């Protein structure tokens, strides 16, 4: 068996399977590089849920708040996270993907299966043909297993690469989302007043806001734990 053929079929499948995420993350990478955007070392991506919620709250507080840039960033991040979650969810069960999607696209495996069927369907079989059928039926699961082992490795590597790449794009955009959200909040009289009433003057930033929020929150809830994780970005 030529392993090159097997690998080519798997690479081809993975290319198609990850086509959307690959396209999106490539576009994001180009966007970041071409516009000289900062790629933060900290995990800003985790803030996304908090920032989206804060954006909604700020929009309620001040209807003139939120420029088109901030709005675009918010929507962009929402979509990117959705793509990330979908790919993550859809690529969890590798065995299932292999069985239900890959086999049907693999010429080697389908041809092998067809050959078995052709033999089986022969009305009159010679002793050699019967032997061949038996051998092929025995070989098919072995061939599938060889395919699966290579598939699992290639698919896993591709998945990691694409998810990491997209995560990096989400991280960069989350960084600018965070900065812009508070910059615009600082320019809103209503929001600044709202913060001033809560004695949070000059503290319009994620870290201080989370410290303030968690201080009056019931601990050990999911929300509290999530916000504590968010705080680690700034430590």
């Amino acid at each position, binding site marked *: 068996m030529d392993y090159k053929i097997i690998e080519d079929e798997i690479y081809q499948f993975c290319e198609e399977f990850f086509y959307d995420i690959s396209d999106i993350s490539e576009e994001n990478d180009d*966007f970041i590089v071409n516009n000289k*955007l*900062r790629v933060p070392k900290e995990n800003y991506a985790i803030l996304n849920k908090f920032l989206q919620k804060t954006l909604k709250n700020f929009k309620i507080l001040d209807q003139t708040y939120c*420029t088109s*840039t901030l709005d*675009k960033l918010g929507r962009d991040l929402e*979509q990117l996270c959705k793509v990330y979650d979908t790919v993550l969810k859809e690529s969890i069960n590798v065995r299932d993907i292999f069985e239900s999607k890959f086999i049907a696209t693999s010429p080697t495996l389908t041809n092998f299966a067809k050959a078995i069927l052709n033999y089986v369907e022969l009305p009159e079989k010679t002793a050699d043909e019967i032997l061949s059928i038996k051998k092929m039926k025995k070989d098919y699961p072995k061939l599938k297993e060889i395919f699966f082992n290579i598939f699992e490795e290639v698919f896993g590597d591709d998945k990691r690469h694409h998810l990491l790449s997209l995560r990096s794009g989400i991280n960069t955009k989350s960084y600018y989302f965070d*900065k812009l959200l508070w910059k615009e909040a600082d320019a809103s009289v209503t929001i600044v007043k709202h913060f001033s009433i809560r004695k949070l003057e000059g503290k319009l930033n994620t870290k201080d806001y989370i410290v303030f929020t968690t201080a009056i929150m019931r601990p050990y809830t999911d929300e509290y734990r999530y916000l504590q994780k968010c705080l680690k970005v700034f*430590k």
Partner: protein
Amino acid sequence: MSETIEYLVEDIEKFLRINEEELEEQSLSLKKLLSVADKIKIFKNIDTLDLRAIVYDVKFERFRLKEYIVEQGQEKKEIYFIIDGECQVFFNTTRIGTLKPGEVFGEAGAIFGTKRGATVVCATPKATLLSFKVDEENIDFCAPALAALYKNLAYEINAKLDSVNTNTAIKK
């Protein structure tokens, strides 16, 4: 699969402005650091220009009472210098010491790349700390400055060890 978000020139300009502001803030912090460098023991015998080349991510950070500054087990590279306020050091849950203005912590993690060995918590209503990272990539042309910095940090670690030894001897 999803709607394409088109960013215009004005959007990109806003992002670039954020970059500039970040750089300005960094440079302001660096200026502040350079203006007080002679008062910081770990920067002894290091030329201002060299210092500019070997430290980065300089930040003045404010913490509130009981706020965690570093957590045991964390992998962070910041070195902290206490400007005002006090901090308490905990190993697991046991308090092992108090840090006062002028003292430095976090140097071991930065030098050896190890996880934080203890937790440091703000112990006064407010504390101002200067945090920075050491840029070892400039080692080729800043070797003497880095050597001086590491020597100063080694003195700090040694002083801490002395203090621990003295305390242990007193207890015995």
